[in-house]
């Protein structure tokens, strides 16, 4: 039997760009590097206006343990540090660099003994390189590589599932840089002192599977490359762990390390490898530009901080009926109001949908078909939670596990009544968390 997880759905794949080789994007004139591109504390800017920066130079210093620095993706002059539009939503302090020259790829001197680097050295270099999970959530990688002693890790999983429709950046990476992925993965395994190393690919990418398998065989035969049946959200950390090991990560705040697993995206592996070998910071990444709203969908290697306009340009520009701009995939990506926002570390793709696709049906009442229940990969009752959230019956929603929703969007995708379940649930989640925080503060005050 094929390994998989329970629940989930299978949206049409639309992998338009699987066969398009990645091309480096020319360096833009102005680069916008937000001080926070990861989950955790924002970085603290260490450059000011008019400073000369060279490629790879840190622009911020990390603002805590769960925080990472950002680096200059190009050489140039800091034009300003201003609040600027950000793909996450709000404006954010952003270092604007006027490019002088692209300054190369930011690699430092090669460490000839990189393969023998100790875990501490690896962690240090990964942190200094500002690596955050590149699958989209952008959790600082060095944190994942620093499990407490009480939580031994036995399994490392390299995530090449890329279950989001349309996106192909990981697919291309697996084809073009398979060996680097495997090297990075082996460094991860060494750092967390795990025995098993899985690499997971969905079976709609047989070429990527073969490519990884070949690379793995040539470097370390103990690596298990697994082909998983296509299903969304296979690439979600918890679902991937469940599919490969049968273990279920307990509800938040538990992390994969609680069940002895560390999951790393394939892109992160390449970044880790380069950080350890050349101390190269994370200043560029693979990005897919795709969808019915661009003329020539493609994959590019873009510098972090490149405004999306350049990427759209690289994809032949908008079609006349382009109507929706999304950073990320169609299931979990953020709709953007402007294409001036920059590429950040978690930007796996830019999706533009045309008018026809961008319109989603009007919300109708739930007819109780139960489809959302059967697709929910964390086994919730989405329709009930959504309804309770709408009614602001927060305690009831909390009791049904509103905080455990991973917002994968499967329920909303499948709902025949077009209910915006995830949206309601997000609202409920935020409200429940706010209420809990309030309660905690009250308690603290009382004590």
């Amino acid at each position, binding site marked *: 039997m094929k390994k998989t997880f329970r629940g989930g759905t299978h949206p*049409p794949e639309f992998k338009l760009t699987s066969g398009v080789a990645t091309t480096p994007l020319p360096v833009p*004139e102005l680069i916008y590097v937000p001080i926070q591109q990861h989950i955790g504390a924002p970085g603290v800017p260490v450059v000011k*206006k*008019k400073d000369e920066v060279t490629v790879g130079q840190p622009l911020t210093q990390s603002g805590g343990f769960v925080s990472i620095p950002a680096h200059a993706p190009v050489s140039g*002059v800091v*034009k*300003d540090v201003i*609040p*600027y539009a950000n793909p996450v939503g709000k404006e954010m302090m952003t270092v*604007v660099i006027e*490019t*002088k020259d692209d300054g190369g790829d930011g690699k430092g001197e090669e460490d000839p003994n990189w393969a023998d680097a100790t875990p501490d050295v690896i962690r240090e270099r990964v942190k200094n390189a500002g690596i955050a999970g590149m699958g989209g959530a952008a959790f600082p990688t060095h944190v994942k590589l620093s499990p407490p002693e009480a939580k031994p890790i036995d399994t490392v999983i390299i995530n090449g599932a890329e279950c989001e429709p349309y996106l192909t950046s990981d697919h291309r990476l697996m084809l073009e840089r398979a060996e680097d992925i495997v090297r990075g993965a082996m460094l991860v395994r060494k750092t967390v002192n795990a025995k098993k190393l899985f690499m997971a690919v969905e079976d709609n990418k047989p070429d990527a599977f073969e490519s990884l398998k070949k690379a793995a065989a040539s470097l370390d035969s103990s690596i298990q490359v697994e082909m998983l049946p296509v299903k969304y959200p296979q690439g979600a950390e*918890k679902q991937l762990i*469940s599919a490969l090991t049968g*273990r*279920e*990560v*307990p*509800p938040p705040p538990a992390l994969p390390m609680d069940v*002895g697993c560390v999951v790393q995206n394939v892109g992160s592996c390449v970044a880790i490898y380069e950080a350890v070998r050349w101390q190269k910071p994370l200043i560029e990444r693979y990005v897919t530009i795709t969808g019915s709203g661009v003329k020539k969908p493609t994959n590019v290697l873009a510098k972090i901080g490149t405004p999306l*306009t*350049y990427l759209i*340009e*690289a994809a032949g520009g*908008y079609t006349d009926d382009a109507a*929706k701009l999304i950073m*990320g995939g*169609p*299931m*979990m*990506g953020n*709709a*953007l109001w*402007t*294409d*001036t926002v920059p590429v950040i570390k978690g930007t796996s793709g830019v999706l533009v*949908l045309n008018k026809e*696709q*961008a*319109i*989603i*049906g009007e919300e*109708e*009442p*739930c*007819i*109780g*078909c*139960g489809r959302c*229940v059967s697709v929910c990969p*964390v*086994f*919730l*009752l989405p329709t009930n939670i959504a309804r309770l959230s709408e009614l602001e019956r927060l305690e009831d929603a909390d009791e*049904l596990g509103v905080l455990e929703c991973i917002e994968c969007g499967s329920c909303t*995708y*499948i709902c*025949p009544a077009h209910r*915006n379940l995830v949206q309601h649930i*997000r609202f409920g989640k935020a409200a429940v968390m706010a209420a809990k925080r309030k309660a905690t503060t009250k308690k603290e005050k009382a004590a």
Partner: protein
Amino acid sequence: MSPFAPDEEKQNDAPDERPESDAPETSADSDDEKARRKEERKAAREAAKAKAAAEAAAEKGKEPAPAADAGASSDEEDEKARKKAERKAAREAAKAAAAAEAAEEKGEEPAPAADAGASSDEEDEKARRKAERKAAREAAKAAAAAEAGGDDKPAESDDEKARRKAERKAAREAAKAAAADAGGDDKPAETDEEKEKRRAERKAAREAAKAAAAEGGDAKPEKKERKERPAKAAKDDKPAKKEKDTAAVPSRKFILSSSPHIHDKESVRRIMWTVTATLVPATIGATWVFGFRALMLVALGASAAMLTEWGLQKLFKAKSTVADGSAFLTGLLVSFNLPPGVPWWIPVIGAFFAIAIAKMPFGGLGWNPMNPALIGRAFLLASWPLHMTKDWLPAFWWKMQGYNFFTWNVNPAAIKLDGVSYATPLEVRKSAISTLTNPEGLPNDVITRAMEVLHSTGDKILDLVIGVTGGCIGETSAILLLIGGVYLLYKGYIDWRTPFAFIATVGLGGWLFGGADGFFSGDMLFHIFAGGLILGAVYMATDMVTTPITKKGRLIFGIGCGLITLMIRLIGGYPEGVSYAILLMNLTTPLIDRYTKPRRFGHIKVATAEARG
């Protein structure tokens, strides 16, 4: 760097990009700065409006003159006068600015016309900015005072920003003044010459801007084509500059919504009409067995239901939902549950009640607690029990003498078979059982007959499966209903758990308790295929709205339906109990859902110890 005449452009072509041009080169922190930016944005909006107006006018071919200010008066002549004044004022302002600049600036370092911010020399930058501000103030004053006059000589300022700002201000003030002067003695006629000149100016301005942009840094070719930048991006002057080239292209408006951004093709409407379509074979079968009359009753029920829903929504001024198909389906099912010999108004009243009482008052589709079609049937059964329990017709009655396929008027009581008023198999069985339970005083042949009935039902199973038997219109043909059910299963519109649990419970229970000779003597197949079990289990107990949403819950629901059906069939007063069983279980749905919540992901007690093994 660019000694063109960029100020000309100001008056004529692109008032809309001016305000956006200077924001980023200034420090982000000062309050001053913020206020200024805000001011600029406002100006930008106004300018954009004015520009749009000017373009519209130009398109009509009447008035290609550019509007520099949005606060335009509607009077055309005034407008012209005002515009002229504005242009002059702007020129004047520019000149003044240049002069001021020249006085304070070293002038060694000409900033690019289109991008002052590109300068990297910090001290110069500061001095320059200071000068700019001062110049701007002076220019504004001068412009306001000047109001008209001044020559056309292009100012050779290398300081865009100050000039632009001054121009804006001056232009506004001048416009006001002009408007006040409204009599307008200097009514300028738009000569061709003038138009030509303006066109040339515009072109020059565009070229200047391009050249400046190219000089501003190592300009990448692709940058030239960046387009359609939303106005708010104005924080950065470069993108704003770019907008200049394509100022006529409106900003692209992107749709914003919460993820996910794609959707399955499924919809409520599609589900309802598909379910309806799967009932077509059963309808055709019923028509064949019970004649054209059956088809008419079905049509009456369906149309009455749709009409009721439409009428109520009309009455209460609500959005019509008739098209979603659920009313049609309800009406269809009401008729399916009627004996084929009922008068025409029975399905009409039943469908009306189903929609008007059991569905719409709760909020329409999705909110009704119980299956509307079954409520309609229950209402009919309680109100017209004779019609509902006696109007049976035997299969193929229309082939009998005196009738034909299209016969409408039929008296069910008059149709006799074997001297017994024909009923449903379940009814025959029920009366046989009651005969045997209380045999005292009954003639022997009646008792014998009852014994025969109870022991011979097995022979008729094939008839039951095909549907060549008495019963409600839509319930008789098990095979046609099952074909539809299989398709619904394939489409995922129904969950196998409910019908399976329902049918299995009735079958097993019938076998266990339903026989005349003690336990395990019942006829399992008879209990499954007689009566409305298949119709109920496949089409009514799977109604999405009124049944549980959890998988476990659906199993429980099915079993519950089966048990109640059995109790009514074997112990209760009615021969058939499917519809009441489903109705009663509908009421337990919320409770079942509450107690069958799935185990949530990660809520495992022996989480990892085993798995790690």
